[in-house]
């Protein structure tokens, strides 16, 4: 229910003042998601895979992860999409660890790292904050996820 807490907090005038927010008197309440925008969304690329190919070729560090208890954009959706990049495996599939437990699984390809986060939903850092933090630290360091 954490979304409800945000709806309360960010609609408080004292909070908006402290954040220098809503300085122009926006004619609607602050809300976590805009119904108007999502209902009227216009151009949406059918596939982002060509952009991945271009940016991988440019040498950017690209990591893609999946919380494996999400059914909205589930891990199988991401794996199926990434499989169509036909990437060369650099480091074979292995379990990565966090706090002595399997934090998820990962495979490193030329140009892209894929990782799952075990027991996490769509908002991975909400459900598995420690595993998400280790994932982020590894990404920033450009290192493979820990094997123990």
């Amino acid at each position: 229910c954490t979304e409800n807490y945000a709806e309360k907090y960010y609609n408080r005038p004292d909070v908006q003042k402290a954040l220098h927010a809503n300085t122009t008197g926006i004619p609607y309440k602050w809300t976590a998601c805009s119904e108007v925008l999502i209902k009227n969304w216009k151009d949406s690329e059918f596939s982002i895979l060509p952009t991945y190919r271009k940016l991988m070729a440019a040498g950017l560090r690209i990591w893609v992860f999946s919380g494996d208890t999400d059914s909205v954009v589930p891990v199988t959706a991401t794996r199926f999409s990434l499989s169509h990049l036909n990437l060369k495996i650099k480091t074979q599939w292995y379990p990565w660890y966090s706090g002595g437990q399997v934090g998820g699984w990962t495979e490193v390809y030329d140009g892209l790292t894929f990782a799952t986060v075990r027991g996490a939903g769509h908002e991975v850092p909400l459900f598995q904050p420690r595993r998400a933090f280790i994932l982020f630290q590894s990404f920033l360091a450009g290192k493979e996820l820990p094997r123990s």
Partner: protein
Amino acid sequence: TKQQELDRITALPGQPPVGFSQFSGYVTVNEDHGRALFYWLTQSATNPDKKPLVLWLNGGPGCSSVAYGASEEIGPFRINKTGSSLYLNKYSWNKVANILFLESPAGVGFSYTNTSSDLKDSGDNRTANDALNFLIRWMSRFPQYKYRDFYISGESYAGHYVPQLANKIFDYNKGLSQPIINLKGFIVGNAVTDSKYDNIGTVAFWWSHAMISDKTYKNILNSCNFTSDKFSKKCDDIVDYAMNHEFGDIDQYSIYTPTCK
């Protein structure tokens, strides 16, 4: 800069004492239409001048990085049940980086437009252009972040936003000898990637996690043509049936945790 200091947050209501600086405010991204995007920067508590800058985008489309990323995922604070105070997030990502939350596009959260028709024709391309404009202008306000290692991160529909913005930055930097936006990479989670393959993989997840019957699984595969971006009514009806009659009252975003009553 002067504007930077005007954006400095002294303290948020109900906030515990912290050792890091934070700033928030607006950057105009389109003067003609009066579109302005709202940002919140939470600097790293240790050596902020040495740490990378990481932009976080939530998806939707139309959802707020302040509501999700900042307040229940990677930000330094969590909001308590009554919305009266904040407590610290032990695994905040600003322990290792300077985290910049952006409410994008205009119309999301505190980000606004003075041209109300903008709310009815947002899309991937304008969102990416406005976000690039935001970064260029934000860097003028925060020149200490020019040339700093820069990463983009996000989840869900930001599986579009993040690579598309990275692509715009890459093209923008091409003509520059020393680009101020020193993009090193991006990381995305549960990311919308490819309409066809995502949908096939999603239905496979529903079946393999015993959320739908064999019959419904077969009906979806037989009735839904995932290569097109418009689904038939028959397809919509079967997916609706699955969600409304076979899933039950679960949180689809986390299928094993209790739903919010």
